């Protein structure tokens, strides 16, 4: 099933990239960034999976001695944990910028922002 998660994650990454490059509405582009984030997290967690492994939490069923044989890799999970929270912060920042841009021009169309075009 890690293959399915990996394939889904890659397809979601490609879909997010497609949304970023072809949509014209600013909010739609930010949705694309959000999807891109989710896809990358799916790929990272899928790569960290070990066949037949359990969650990296040791208790009475998974004792300390045979932990190394039974758990999945905890390191990518810890990194994805922080990455999700940062993703929320970055999404909120992009939305604040979009709000500001809409206030300046009165539209969300990306084609009407030509101030830095040359």
């Amino acid at each position, binding site marked *: *099933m*890690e293959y*399915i*998660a990996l*394939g*889904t994650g890659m*397809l*979601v990454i490609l*879909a*997010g990239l*497609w*949304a970023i490059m072809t*949509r*014209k*509405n600013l*909010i*739609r582009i*930010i*949705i*694309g960034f*959000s*999807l891109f984030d*989710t896809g990358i*997290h*799916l790929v990272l*967690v*899928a790569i*960290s*999976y070990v066949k037949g*492994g*359990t*969650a*990296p*939490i040791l208790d009475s069923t998974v004792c300390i001695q045979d932990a190394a044989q039974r758990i*999945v890799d905890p390191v990518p*999970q*810890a990194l*994805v*944990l922080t990455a*999700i*929270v940062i*993703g*929320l912060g970055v*999404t*909120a920042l992009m*939305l*604040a910028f*979009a*709000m500001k841009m*809409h*206030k300046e021009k*009165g*539209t*969300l*169309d990306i084609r009407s922002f030509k101030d830095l075009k040359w």
Partner: protein
Amino acid sequence: MNYLLITSIFTGVIILVFTFIAIYQKNMVAAIISTGAVGLFASLMYLVLAAPDVAMTEAAIGSGLSTFIFFYVLNRIRSTDKKKSDSVKNDQL
């Protein structure tokens, strides 16, 4: 066929369908809700992949808080548009 494999196949298909809706749905509210649903089903996928910590974070943040921030911004933009009476235009892009 074990149950985890079937669950992961279903979850993957649902994630891809909601991704498609989020990109191509004309109605912006439906697109934002689909983005939240992608996060929710991704958290189910994390649970299948034995990562309960990541699943909890994604369920609370990806499908809860970020959806609300999107809606606050959409509401604000609509209320500004309404005064200029060209509110329909932005939804159709």
